[in-house]
């Protein structure tokens, strides 16, 4: 089957930091990002509006530094909007006037479309078919990050649909390829619950867990990771051995920041893209089931 694509070469992107890190750690991360090989960098808080180590002005300043270092900067947005104040902040991000915005909720799509701005649609917006994708492309979608639970086969069926093939040169496709998968969002803060605190008195306790809190089944298997109101996969998702099956279909490969080794893995992905057989392999324990149309927790 023909697999239409708009670019020949896979590019890497650093996704937004999903955990709550101290400001110094965030700044240090982006200093490294400025000199890393990823051409695309996403910035901003996508999980909880109570995490305020950095304000929009700080993110914009980091974005300017990254842009000067030659990066394409994208401001990412809150996924679950519950309060009017969160919508006001979202409006400010959408009106930033400098950077492309990743819409992680349909509210952001609406605000960006109203302003006639192009946008990225993040993985938590439900785009499951070419008709929906085409509708969004007509309204400004320039990059689509596929929902994390979808497979190569599903993606192929979307991109070979005659509804979307004539539009394929108007948008890029990005796939979440490395890191703990964002799987669910709730009103409840599970990190606060794990410390027996109510959310309103959370004391920002998620800052104690720069990699989230691990949840194991009673027989010791890693199942989930608690990250505030977000639940992530227990295992790290890792498509480094699957890069060849992304070629010709995907444009951008998302590396989700981890507290350690993010840049080492970025290098491994760059090497995989470049066809270097000496590169690092996917370790036992990392999973890739979703890409192979299986349970996400599966290793193929």
């Amino acid at each position, binding site marked *: 089957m023909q697999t239409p694509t708009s670019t020949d070469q896979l590019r890497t992107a650093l996704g937004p930091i999903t955990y709550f890190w101290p400001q110094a750690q965030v700044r240090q991360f982006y200093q490294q990002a400025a000199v890393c090989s990823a051409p695309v960098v996403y910035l901003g808080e996508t999980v909880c509006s109570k995490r305020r180590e950095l304000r929009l002005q700080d993110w914009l300043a980091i974005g300017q530094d990254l842009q000067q270092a030659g990066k394409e900067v994208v401001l990412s947005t809150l996924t679950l909007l519950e*309060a009017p104040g969160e919508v006001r902040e979202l409006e400010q991000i959408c009106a930033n006037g400098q950077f492309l915005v990743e819409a992680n*909720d349909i*509210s952001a799509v609406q605000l960006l479309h109203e302003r006639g701005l192009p946008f990225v649609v993040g993985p938590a917006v439900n785009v*499951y*078919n070419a008709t929906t994708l085409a509708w969004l492309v007509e309204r400004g979608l320039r990059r689509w990050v596929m*929902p994390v639970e979808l497979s190569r086969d599903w993606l192929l069926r979307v991109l070979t649909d005659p509804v979307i093939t004539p539009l394929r040169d108007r948008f890029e496709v990005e796939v979440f390829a490395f890191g703990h998968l964002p799987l669910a969002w709730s009103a409840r803060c599970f990190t606060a619950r794990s410390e027996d605190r109510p959310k309103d008195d959370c004391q920002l306790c998620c800052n104690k867990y720069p990699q989230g809190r691990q949840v194991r089944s009673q027989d010791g298997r890693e199942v989930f990771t608690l990250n505030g109101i977000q639940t992530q996969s227990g295992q790290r998702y890792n498509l480094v051995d699957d890069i060849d099956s992304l070629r010709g279909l995907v444009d951008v490969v998302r590396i989700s920041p981890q507290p350690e080794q993010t840049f080492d893995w970025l290098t491994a992905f760059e090497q995989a893209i470049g066809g270097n057989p000496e590169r690092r392999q996917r370790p036992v324990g990392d999973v890739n089931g979703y890409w192979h149309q299986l349970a996400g927790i599966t290793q193929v």
Partner: protein
Amino acid sequence: MELLCPAGNLPALKAALNAGADAVYVGLKGGTNARFFAGLNLTESDLAQAATLAHRAGRRLHVALNTFCHPGQEHRWFSAVDMAARAGADVLIIADLALLDYAARAWPGVERHLSVQASATSFVAADFYQRHFGVSRVVLPRVLSMAQVSQLARHLRDQELELEVFAFGSLCIMAEGRCYLSSYLTGESPNTVGACSPAAHVRWQEDNGALESRLNGVLIDRFEPGERAGYPTLCKGRFDVSGQRYHVLEEPTSLNTLALLPKLHREGISAVKIEGRQRSPAYVEAVTRVWRQALDSLHTDPEAYAVEPAWDRVLAGLSEGHQTTLGAYHRKWS
């Protein structure tokens, strides 16, 4: 305030109408709705009969078409919309943009309600769906506090956009339409197949007198003799965090908002929804009867409304783990 009750088959629909539902929601066979369970849902001829029964009783029929169209298979969902509209559905409950767009163009005269699976939690999102697809009502995800529901209701009052809230039944603790926990463990999720923690993946196992429940091999919970064993919905299992074993995400419990009815009424919420299309006709009848009494009492004299202990008793008896909660409506739950 409309009492909207679930029906997975015609006997449940009759039970709901008989017990005083103002409207009943159903789904079609074939995976086009979020309760894709064996033996559940209506055929095309059932649907026509359901519409006749509802309309004869002066009630309304809502049809849920709230899964996301599979790629290249949009025509299956579009046909289901046509089938529902032709059968006389008053309302289509939809989440996918592709399907909303189709329904708005093909059947502009049939009301469109935004399914909870679309995860609309802000007035901007609600505005998006009203503006582009003419939805007349938004079903709110079970993630908002009562104060947040009030703020939203006040914001939308001038827009002639109705709000519907979940009132009773199984409690989804994640933002609906945005939870992939089930596919992470089983490969199947509400968004992709219309089911969470699907029964085909469930295994029960005895181990030294304890009963273990597994989902696709992953241990969800372990029950000692004498403990009440519940269905292994993965977010209601007991897991370990740093050596502590507890219900990490949520206890087995059901949502019950009888106590919130006066507030919901005051904020102009248009409908209260009872979850449970997978439940028996007897369950639907019993729950509907309680809620009918509660709403009648509320409408007679909102000031004098009080939850009768008998109502709570009936509902608790029909609830998961025999416990109920106000869920996210009550800020302390979060």
